[in-house]
Every structure is written in C-alpha cells, then in structure tokens.
C-alpha cells in the first residue's frame, strides 16, 4: 500500500509534467501563428477602413478567421450608415457564409461567436441559421440565437421560442425578461397572452409582466392588480407585481398598491411605496407616513421618496414629521428633505 502511494504519486507528477511540456511546445507554435494572424489583421484593417466600396481581391492571402473577426469587430464599433457599409463589406467577403458553417462547429465557443456574428446580418439565410441554432444543445447559444432573432424584423412566435428554449421550468433569469422586452416592444399581444396563460410557470408569467411594464402598456393593469390582490402576502411574486404596477404608473393600480402598503412583507411594502410615489397616489399619504417609522430602512427610504413624489402635500407631511415626529421617522423625513435641498 505504502509503495503504491509512492508509485501513483510519481506516475501522476511525471505525467502532469510531460503534458505540461507538450502544452509549452504547442504554445510556442500557437504564439507564432497568433503573431502571423495579428500581422495579417494589421495589414487588412486599413484596407477595410479606407474605402467605402466593397473590397476587391486584395484579401486572398489573409486567413478567413482574420477576415471574419476583423469585420465583425468593425461592425460592432460603429452605428448607422457606416455600420451598413461594413455589413456590406463583410457580406461581399463571404463572412456570413463562414459564420453559418462555423455555427455547426463542435466547439461551443466557436458556435457562440458564429451566432453573435450572424445576429449582425439581417438577411434570410442568416436568420435561418439563427433559427436552426434555437435547437442547439447549449442553453447559452439557444438564448443568444433567440435574443438575436427577437431583435430582427422576422422573429419567430413567442410560443415557439418558449418551447424551444425550454423556459417552462421554474427558474427565472433576467435574460428571459430581456428577451420578452424585445417582443413587448413589437408584439405586446404575444407577451400579454403569456401573462394570462395560467398553464405557464409563474416565473415565465412574471418575466412577461416585468417586460410589459417597461413598455408602460397599461392594458394589463387590471390583470396585474387582480394577481397582486390574490398573491399571498409573503410570496416572492407580490413585490414583482407591485413593482410592475409602479413601472406602468397607472392610477388603476390603486387598490393593489394600497393593499401592498399594508402588507406584512418588507419587499412588498418597499415595492408598494415605490409604486405609490410613481403613481402619485395622494390617498396613500397616511400609510406612507406610517411607513416612515417602519423598522426596515428600505421601507422608510422608499416611503420618504414616495412622499416627495406626491408633491407639495407629501413634502408638507415630511416637514411635519421632521419637526414633530419621533425617530426613526423623523430622521428619515429630515434627512430626505435635506438630501433634496428642501427646507425643513
């Protein structure tokens, strides 16, 4: 046994050293190759930059990988007409075709680069390649393809996207919200349908609500109010409903916001206070004043902020508390007034 420990350790250490030596030698080779590629890149960059027209035959001796990477880098550096010029140059150099081939690489990293590159070309074949990548075995690549497609004019249906991205689990990501936001801007009805689809996981529906809230689409306010009123006080979703109502800023949220201000849940009261301020819900002033004495700082802070947003009436209440109230409400009122440069 003792001898075996020695033998195994010797075998492992010598194998590791041998592998490392091979890696060092490989690195010498790859460094030389990298230097050649960088030289080619330095040669190509001014040629691409100096002419507005698509390039001619001067790039035959430049490796494809350099042409692809450099054109993609340049496209991402600029906007507007200049960007369109670079996109055309890249297309004339065969970059989209190479990216479509690269999208089938065994390497995840190369496939991801291909998807991110294809997103820059708004042609039918590139879009088809992106749609194909919605079935990639890697979650991130599927999501990257979905985000790219969501930004294009011919995006797939949201239902199809949800199915292909396997978003039907309970884990939620802010990237899902980001994806839905693109749809909310162009196809709000599809996102609204998600909110009302009770078969979908709550995480997906919440992401849809938050995406729609950013657009300020108030058609959903009654539905969110109903969901908010039904949500358990200590649930994770209640603050998110209230936050969305605040983002939309429609007075029809009144009932849910007032109920939220009285919630036992700290995050719900914080979100409700934020919403009350954004909606300028004057009738919430008494509750907001009560919340200035809450044990949690975030609640006091958001309540004071909301009172400031109520205008002169809210400021008057803050002045009153700053002058006559007890801590911690007094401190909250006095400091928030001072912070905003308002005389106490």
């Amino acid at each position, binding site marked *: 046994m003792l001898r075996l420990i020695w033998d195994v350790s010797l075998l492992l250490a010598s194998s590791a050293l041998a592998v490392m030596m091979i*890696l060092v030698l490989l690195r010498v080779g790859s460094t030389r190759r990298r230097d050649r590629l960088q030289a080619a890149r330095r040669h190509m960059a001014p040629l691409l930059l100096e002419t507005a027209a698509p390039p001619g035959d001067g790039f035959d001796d430049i490796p494809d990988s350099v042409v692809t990477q450099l054109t993609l880098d340049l496209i991402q550096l600029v906007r507007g007409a200049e960007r369109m010029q670079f996109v055309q140059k890249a297309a004339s150099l065969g970059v989209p075709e190479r990216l479509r081939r690269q999208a089938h690489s065994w390497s995840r990293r190369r496939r991801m680069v291909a998807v991110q590159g294809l997103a820059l070309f708004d042609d039918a074949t590139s879009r088809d390649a992106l749609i194909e990548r919605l079935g990639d075995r890697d979650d991130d690549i599927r999501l990257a393809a979905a985000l790219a497609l969501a930004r294009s004019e011919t995006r797939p249906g949201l239902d199809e996207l949800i199915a292909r991205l396997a978003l039907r689990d309970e884990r939620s990501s802010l990237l899902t919200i980001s994806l839905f936001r693109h749809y909310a801007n162009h196809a709000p009805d599809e996102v609204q349908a998600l909110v009302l689809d009770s078969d979908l996981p709550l995480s997906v529906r919440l992401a849809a609500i938050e995406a729609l809230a950013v657009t300020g689409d108030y058609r959903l306010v009654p539905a969110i109010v109903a969901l908010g009123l039904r949500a358990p006080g200590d649930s994770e979703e209640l603050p998110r409903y209230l936050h969305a109502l605040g983002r939309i800023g429609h007075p029809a949220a009144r009932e849910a916001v007032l109920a939220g201000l009285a919630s036992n849940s700290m995050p719900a009261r914080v979100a409700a206070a934020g919403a009350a301020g954004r909606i300028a819900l004057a009738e919430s002033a008494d509750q907001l004043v009560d919340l200035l004495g809450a044990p949690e700082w975030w609640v006091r802070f958001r309540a004071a902020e909301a009172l400031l947003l109520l205008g002169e009436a809210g400021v008057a209440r803050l002045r009153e508390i700053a002058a006559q109230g007890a801590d911690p409400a007094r401190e909250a009122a006095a400091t928030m007034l001072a912070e905003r440069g308002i005389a106490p």
Partner: protein
Amino acid sequence: MIEWPTWAFRAAEIVSWFVVACGLVQVLLYIIQLLFAALALHRRPAWSSTSALWDRFADIAPSIAVVAPAYNEELTIIESVEALLALHYPDFEVIVVNDGSKDTTLQVLIDHYGMVPVARYHDHALAHQPIRGLYAAPERPRLFLVDKENGGKADAMNAGINVARTPLVCVIDADTLLEPDALMRAVRPFIEDPARTIAVGGTIRIANGCRVEGGRVLEARLPRNFLALVQVVEYLRAFLMARLGLSEMQTLMIISGAFGLFRRNSAIEVGGFSADTVGEDMELVVKLHRRMRDLKRPYRIVYIPEPVSWTEAPETLSILGNQRSRWQRGSLETYRTHKDMFLNPRYGRIGFLGFGQVWIVDVIGPIVEVAGYILVPPLWMLGLVSFDYLLAFVAVIFTFGVFISVATLILEEVQLRRLPRARDLAILTLVAVLENFGYRQLNNFWRLRGWWQFLRKDTGWGPMVRKGFQRD
C-alpha cells in the same frame, strides 16, 4: 544498534500512518476539486467578449455600489478612484470610505474632485465607527465619499454597505485593480439566477511585474521576485482549483475581501463583516451559508474565474510570513466561531464537505505536516519504520504537491490561456516543482505561527508595506 521494544515500532507506525493518511486525504480533496474545477471550466458560458456581455446584460444589469475602503492612501487614491470610475458597467457608484486616515487621503479626494458635504439618508443596520461626514462630487455623480473614524477594513466596509442604495455591493481593497469589465462579468450569476444568488467571488491575480498605468494592468507579465512568482502559482491553485472546485460543489467557504460581489440585503441580514476577526471575508461567507441553511432558503454562493482583479503580492519573507500567519489565524477564528456547523447534518454539504475541507487543510493540516517533517525521517533513520513509510510521506508532500500544482497550470492553459507567453508557462511549471522544496515548508512554519497567535488570541493585522505597482 538500539533494541527498541515492540510497542515503539507499533507507535512509530501509527504516527507515520496518521501523517501519511492525513496527507492522502488532503491530496484526495485537491484531486476532487481539480475534477470539479475542470468540469466547471468546461461548462462555463461560451460567450466571452466584453462587447457581447454588454450587448446582453446592459439593459438588465442590477445597479452595484463598489465599496473601496481607504486608509492612508494619499499617494495612490486618485489613480485608484479614476480606475474605478472608468469601469465598464451600466449602473454603478463608487463609495470610497476614508477609514480615519492619518494622512491627507480625505483632503486629496475633496480637492481633486471638488467634493462637497451632503446629506444622504442611509441605513444604520450594520455597526461601525461613527461617520464624520458624507461628500459628493457634483461633477462626478458616480462618486461618493464617506469619512469615518478609524475602525479597520471590516468596519469601513460595513459603513460603505450601510450607505449603499443598490441591490448589489462590490467590496474591494483600496489597492485592488479591477479589470474594466470585471463587474460585468461578476454580475452574471445574479442575472442568470437572480432569486438564489447571494454572493459571487472573482479571480485575484498577482500584479507584481505587470505594466500598470492609470490603475489598469496594461500588460500581464510575471514578477521577477521569486516569492512573488511562487505566489502566482499559489493564487492559480487557490482560485482556479480550490475555489472553482468548491464553488461547483456548492461548498465555497471564502470570497476574498479583495474582490467580492454580495447581495446587499443578504450581507445586512447576517450583520455584515465581523470586525473582531482577521478572517472577516471567510467569516461573512460562512455566516451567509449558516443563515440560508437555517432558514432553509435555496441559495447560491459562486466563484467564477473570468472577472479578474489584480493585487500586489508581498515580496519579502517577513511581510509574506505575516500575511500567511494572519490568514491562518482568520481561518481558525472562523472555524472556532462556527464549529457547531462542522459535521452537523443540519448544514448539509457545508457542514461535511466545506467544514471538512477547512478542518483537514486549515485546522490540522499545518500541524500534521510539520509533525511529519519532524517525526517521519527520524523514525526511519532510527529504524522504527520502514523505508516505505518515508517514501509514502515524500509522495504525499512532494510528488503529489508537484502534480496538483502542475495540473492546475494545465487547467489554466487548456481552458483559459491567460498567460501571455510560452516562456511564462515554462517558468511557472518550474516554480510549481520548486515551491515544494523549501517554500512549502516555510509556509507551514508561518501557518503554525498563525496557530500560535490564534492560541494567544493575538488580534493585530501586522505590517503590510506595499512597494507599489510598476507604473510607466
């Protein structure tokens, strides 16, 4: 020739076996960490460019307050703050906490940025020394300055967390150099799994020898100082193998105070950084584990290798020795405070794997290894144990040590390729072998000294004299 009684042979064999077995368990833990680290690196997200990250995260990235405690940093504070203000992140503020500096750190900041006293309603949830003043810079709205009485790094970070109004706080050392995209990369777990992620740690690399300008590492180079070189290998092993492996097993026990991103509410719930320990960064992470497991809440504490920060490593034996003794003391203090979690089924894998690793590596590790140096060779020379025991001891200390270090370098080269030149790889391979002969033993001596300081209840940090980054 001495005639030893039978029990002496038996006792010598038991002692030698115990030393070898402890070493083997450590080696086994490291190999498991290596395997999990390799798995994590293989599974890490495919996207890597900063522009791709920005494109994807910019409109959803939660706001972050970067808390930078500063104590007597008058010479470097402007450069550090400028680098922080230039970070690539959509929504962040920099909160510099002047921790009662005795030099002109405060005045330098006020004068340079035209800062003015302001009122700011802030939390008092975390205890810290009194705040003397709050300052804002009208022309640099992202910058905020807290001037407080001296209370140490943990105290200053607590003040910064109290003043922050963002969902996430990033704590750094005043001399930490963050890569411009470090926040953008570190925030990924908070975006992908916002409900469960409560803390994220990033990689810290050694800046000695690098070309630094304007608070940025412009060119990564290896240090020329041997001690700093050894620390390059150590940091690679600590981050790329240990932290990444433990993170993949969901048993990460430390996020370095030099660069960590925390959910503010979670940090406040556990009372922030403890000012009564020199291992406040490890202690905070253990408190987070305890709290979340006590409440039976699902959570994630994650290390990701991509966000990089740079720090200056000690280049003299005395300063390095102080640092290592302090780290050892910090681990022991954390272990003592939370020892009820060790092997406690209530804390699941944290109690068994996390604390098991702390116990084997940090608590008994240095004692057993030094005992091995003192006992095993003499026992063999006295004829009490066979040559095989000596070979096994040499295996667990030296040859397995070489394997673990070189295997980490292989992982780095195959997956990350952050070392710029083939020559650097060759040098680090050589260092990975050499460190096992001399430096490792010295390190164990420093750790034993940390044990002694722990037993004596020493509380000081010891001197940390910085040479300064090599600037153009």
